[in-house]
């Protein structure tokens, strides 16, 4: 562990997991860098039509 700890986190990958991580950290007082390879975040969940078992719209 470094002597001088930084209050920032980098999240690599902007799918549903990356987005949730980033939101939790930002909401609790950390500066977040979200790094995404493609031109938009959302990942595979954004490509899904509906989700089981509630048939909610994935978008």
């Amino acid at each position, binding site marked *: 562990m*470094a002597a001088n700890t930084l209050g920032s*986190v980098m999240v690599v990958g902007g799918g549903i997991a990356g987005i949730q991580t980033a939101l*939790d950290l930002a909401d*609790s007082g*950390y*500066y977040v860098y979200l*790094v995404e390879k493609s031109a938009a975040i959302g*990942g*595979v969940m954004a490509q*899904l039509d509906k989700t089981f078992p509630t048939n909610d719209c994935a978008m």
Partner: protein
Amino acid sequence: MSEVKKVDGVEGDFTVTVKKSPRYIDMDKCIACGLCAEKCPKKVDSEFNMGLDKRKAAYILYGQAVPLKYAIDGENCIYLQKGKCGACEKYCPTGAVNFKDAAEEVQIKVGSLILSPGFKPFDPTVFDTYDYAHIPDVVTSLEYERLLSASGPCMGHLVRPSDHSEPKKIAWMQCVGSRGFNKCDNGFCSSVCCMYAIKQALVTAEHTTGDVSQTVYYMDIRSHGKDFEKYYVDAEKKGVKFLRARPHTLIPGTDGKGVKLRWVDDQSQEHYEEYDMLVLSVGLEAPKDARVLAEALDIKLDRYKFAETGSFAPVTSSRPGVYVAGCFQSPKDIPQSVTEASSAAASAAIALSSARGSLTKEKTYPPEIDVTSAEPKIGVFVCSCGINIAGVIKVDEVVEYAKTLPGVVFVENNLFTCSSDTQVMIAEKIKEHGLNRIVIAACTPRTHEPLFKDTLREAGINEYLIEMANIRNQNSWVHAKEPEKATEKAKDQVRIAVAKAALLCPLEHISVNVVQKALVVGGGLSGMIAALGIADMGYETVLLEKSNSLGGNAMKLIKTWKGEEIKPQVQAVIDKTQSHPRIKVYKNATLKSAVGSVGNFVSEVEANGETLAIQYGVGVVATGGSELKPAEYLYGHDKKVKTHQEFDALLESNDASVKNAESVVFIQCVGSREPGRPYCSRVCCTHSMESAIALKKMNPDMNVFIFNRDIRTYGLREDLYTEARKLGVIFVRYEVEAKPTVALDGGALYVTGMDHILRRPLKIKADYLVLASAIVPNQTKELVELYKCSVGAEGFLTEAHPKLRPVDMSVDGLFLAGLCHYPKPIDEAVAQAQAAVSRAGVILSKSVMPLDSIKSAVTDKCDGCALCVDTCPYNAISLEVYEDGGKEHKRIATDKALCKGCGICMATCPKRGVNVAGFTMDQISAQIDTALAGF
């Protein structure tokens, strides 16, 4: 458009080298008008639609993309490749195109890294006998997902690729690229394909006209998640056919349309079947560049190239300060990914707690324009929700109708009213037209009202000046077969919402001071991990345990499925919990009362005969579950019949009777997947596999049988199933209608079942019979009544949203972890407990927390009769004495933090002496009057 190249430094102080690829569009200038894409002459396969249609070289990934900014695909752009064209640059109205944009490397300093790069869908072209590459109507599940989607290439009206006709007979083929070494070296189960195939089969009926036939070819159906088994049973009831077979060959159908499938049944009988379309349920592999990423980050991968983690630190990679979440950790579904995401957030937050808040600042909004006395100028936004609404309701008719309503000055239809581009647009329309009341005709306010409220604040008006008409859940979804009536109902709903909107008033912002302390109920592994995490973040924590020892079920288990010893690890957690300076443990403790709400709860706790009061801002419920004591298979009548936990105790004690046993039989699904308990207990298949392997390793000559309905060793646990088969464990399948029978004969125990291959009865003498019995939740009736939280039919506590809020409870400020939520193994329980830590940390990190303004308040008509004091279910109302004209009077007062705005007080009051802000009697009357206007 960035990638991590290198990470230097140590936990707490990393320097990350990130390569930013050129976008060729200036994000600050782009207004997402789409002209660049319209004018771009170069067509490219759309990756978002899995290559089923084309996008341009100037593109956005999808309509609701975040950020909603175009990009130019340098590899396909004609100008960038050949130096000619430049149409986008010419037509861009804001001069956002910048062909000189170049890749750059930047260095960013962070304290931790969290890796969530996702997965790669398996490419089925390696299976030559499936001929996916050449049969157009054979698609992958992700392609099928896009074909179903309203934003996909056929706008949600399913057609097959060969001739664009609507398929009537569709098959799904499971485990393509999973559970196999022959062509793909993917020995693992991808965990999600059974469920997504069932979902696709079910929703196909909504995307097609007329009758449709759906068949799923599978090896084992793995519906091991919460409410998944019911979904599977429901699909069967709705006519989806399930056939246990692994088809070996696919050949093109007649005239190259459709597909013929060859498969062999249990009796070696070959079958041919023709389908209009076939979906390959492709597995989830580690991301394509997993190795590159692992090298850049210097972390270890497992044999399948997923990140290596341990069961007691399920999101911690091999490098300190680097965490993983989602499918990169192992294949998993959305709730599990979201849980791990919060778990990773907690792990990073704990490590960096000394620097919390050092680099962030609060979000600010523009000053609020006071519209209290302004004439209503109502804006109505009607959502299509893809085809969810527009597929049934004629939204243009609803739009035209809304324009005729009193007070309405602006109406518009959106494909997705909730998308972020629409939020920007709504805010613009509010400013442009001076809108001061907003009606959103879309889905339930539970899902998106907070988003729309934020949009209103961004636009400078009070966020309570909004009313939603739920024309999806309460209309298009339930009246799908009566589109005309549904359209009429939607108009009624919009008219009713507009009537209320006209009377909406801005509400005052209120807040509570957060008690920065936590209460954890339950001292099993989940409870302890939650308490430790919260305490390590720096907050005082009280842990209640009803028994006289910590550890719970975990102390009865031997090894995790990954082979780690459990008891020493749990003991270390117990020691750490008991000695933590910020954790106060109460054993023999019960929760007696709970009042208050998020940020400020007060409870009375009885511990060792004493009563004490505890004040806390958040609570974590981890009350656990237990192994069901079976009522069948001679359990309790013969001591050779054991449950898993009982048999584990024998295994651990090196009992000679186990070592020398000639034959041990396991029966799966004892008490699970039956009408009384219609859920899968998730852990029992893996547990039986571990025990069976231990027995075979102890004595290879022992006969070990596992009677099962489906083997559900999901994820990388599948390796255990493979190993058990290699070691000679014999698997016998049974149907729930024909369970094996157990009988005693002269003191010997016999298990009789039907062998599914031989089709002959099989009678096995068993030295031990191990029953893989269900996991049942511990009693939470009192807790549910105290907190007024929701609980499912089977007694498991309910989460706020099954996908997106898997650890939040229905009551704000309460979180859940472990077996009280659903049966789960240790690694998942730890992840969920850590996720609860993160979610709790979001609240605890603030000393003041804003509250919802929908609260009851006394009016001048109150005469202090106190009828409402008794009916309030939250004990939020009390009587107060005040003086007026020299006389003493009584009236009620509401505790704003306790009040949930339910309105029971208002309904009880005979004198209009109390009103709920945002739901006043006048507003409700206006809604009823307009609803009944036509009658």
